[in-house]
């Protein structure tokens, strides 16, 4: 005979899972639709059936072999790699002073950094293109049709800086005092203590930066004219045309494009575990 409170706990567990599963269905439905549609014939997508009669694996072959899809995929990986690397480094270096150093103008600088998020892209596009064109002319490496225009403008993001600052401010002050007594300066403290403590937020920032870079379409089209550096989002758009969309191919392309993000998140979410970040430091 189980203890009544244990039974209650079991019941609440069961209810929790039931709730999670139901809401999970709603969360996964469009994803499932995307995967199912990616296996349909064009006719089936037009008729709006939900499950394909026979699985059309060749959609993936067609989507992948659609001119340069593989190249675009590789480009996207390179671009994302550079953007994520740059963002992590620069955001870390900016978030730390904002969180843990005393200097004049800290609050205004923070607000100014946030201000960069507040203007719609429709009006920042032109000036940013002009800046990149200017840099293209004056810098030793070309920017247009090359990786700098696609990566450098995104290597500093207010989101990442803000998020890291929030986490760094949560790091107990005593740790810093202790490090100071040991003779560590800000830099050593940042890289030896803060960095490992911020594993989870850093991975989070890295992942979101990756997703943002991975999905970007408008700007890459603006600063590239050849496939050499074009990202995968451009390839996906090619399945939409005036002659009518080819939803089945679009969806197989979308599935291919989603896989790296899924894998990445699968790895990152493992970090979201109680206490990992602080273990070994307390006591």
């Amino acid at each position, binding site marked *: 005979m189980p203890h009544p409170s244990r039974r209650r706990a079991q019941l609440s567990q069961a209810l929790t899972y039931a709730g999670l599963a139901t809401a999970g269905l709603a969360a996964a439905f469009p994803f499932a639709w995307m995967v199912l549609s990616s296996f349909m*014939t064009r006719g089936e997508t037009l008729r709006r059936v939900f499950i394909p009669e026979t699985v059309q694996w060749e959609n993936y072959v067609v989507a992948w072999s659609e001119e340069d899809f593989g190249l675009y995929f590789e480009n996207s990986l390179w671009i994302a790699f550079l953007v994520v690397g740059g963002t992590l480094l620069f955001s870390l270096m900016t978030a730390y002073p904002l969180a843990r150093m005393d200097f004049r103008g800290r609050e205004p600088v923070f607000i100014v950094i946030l201000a960069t998020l507040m203007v719609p892209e429709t009006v920042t596009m032109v000036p940013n293109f002009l800046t990149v064109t200017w840099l293209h002319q004056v810098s030793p490496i070309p920017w247009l049709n090359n990786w700098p225009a696609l990566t450098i403008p995104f290597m500093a993001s207010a989101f990442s800086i803000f998020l890291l600052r929030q986490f760094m401010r949560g790091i107990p002050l005593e740790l810093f005092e202790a490090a100071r007594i040991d003779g560590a300066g800000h830099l050593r403290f940042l890289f030896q203590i803060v960095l490992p403590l911020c594993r989870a937020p850093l991975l989070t920032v890295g992942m979101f930066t990756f997703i943002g870079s991975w999905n970007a379409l408008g700007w890459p089209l603006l600063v590239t004219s050849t496939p050499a550096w074009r990202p995968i989002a451009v390839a996906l758009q090619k399945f939409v*045309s005036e002659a009518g969309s080819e939803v089945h191919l679009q969806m197989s392309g979308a599935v291919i494009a989603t896989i790296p993000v899924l894998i990445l998140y699968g790895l990152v979410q493992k970090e979201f575990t109680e206490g990992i970040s602080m273990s070994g430091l307390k006591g």
Partner: protein
Amino acid sequence: MMQKRTWSRLGLALTVLVTGLLPACGGGGGGKRADKAVDLEQLDPTGQNLVFWYQHTRQREEALKEMIARFNADNEYGITVGGEYAGNYGAIYNKMFVALQGGALPDLVVAYQNQALEYWGAGGLADMQAYMTSPRWGLTTAERSDFVAAFMRQDQLASGVQTGMPPNRSIEVLYYNQDWLQELGAAGPPQTWDVFAQLCRAARDQPFSGNENKTRSVGFILDADASRLASMVFSRGGQLMNAEGTRYLLDTPEVSASLALMKTLTKEGAVELMGEADGDQSAFAVGQCLFTLASTSGLSYVQDAVVSGSGFDWHVAPPPRTVADPVVNFYGASISMGRTTPERQLAAWLFLKWFTEPSQQALWVEASNYFPARKSTKDALAGYFAANPRYRQAYDLLEYGKAEPAVAGYEGVRRMIAQTVVRVIQGGEISANLERLQREANATMESD
């Protein structure tokens, strides 16, 4: 207090930065512009490398690339055209937008009329008139009259400036389910709006035999879109804009009658307002809707859908009408020439001239499903006609084409029209709504 000082200093620094940088950017770029005084006849287009921005993808892009490669190999001037996919129309507009502020303009660019008008106004396009009429480089009189006049006129400004050249067009036609029409006892597609209305009611009452979901059966699904309304208005002898292109005509009896018919039929359950993207074509494909009004660029799309849907016999016809001759709404983007250097512009023109020759047109329309801009292309299309009977049916309607307004704010007015159509169909009073539409649409003509 300290904070305030920091703020004001920051503001000052920002102002200095911005004002310092602006002049540097505003004046930069542009490059050498074409000089009007240059003598076209003496120019040498040899060896130019050109950039061509287009929106085509998939089969169309492949065909275009092949043709460009052939031009590059065969043309006697050693001109090389580099075709570049530049994104969809919106993305191309973006690219032109930034190029006009100080980037490099393309030599050739696909543009809708209202976009071309903006590019021209900003000094970004070359006038093709001189090239077309040039004794050495231009078109002969016979060649010029071979172009469908209405297509060519669409790219002409009142001042005679030619902002672009039509490589192709699409027209808006009535798609109809022939098998269902026969079940309803009709001999052919409706010639008049009265017959159209009767058939819609009949379709509501007697679902198509091939329809698997008999609870839904309508005559027509109305896409609330300005082009659909334009088709209807044209077919009643009306216009959306006056001939001078200075004033919208959206509160006319023709607009009113078109909306009134749709409103009545919707109320009776014989017509449905479209609720999903491409909802008209997918309902047509499964035999739930007897007619749709749509662009010919969707012919292959509907073909695929019907084959996998109810598999009935279907055809296209001009929209029903009250005037004697059929009238069809036509549209399509043209190719414009960026304002670069005289030599490059000439080279770009030579490509365009080649691209619109009947033999190239034939290749292009076969790959793209578009309609050619030159009438004599017909002779080269016999085989294609035989394989695509519906394309053939629509082809004969080209000469009845009429265009929608080509003024700057038309994109915005299109949205106003669509909103008005919905308001009216959902019970709004027609004359009051059209009055408002007319007022708001004309207000866009004088905005800055």
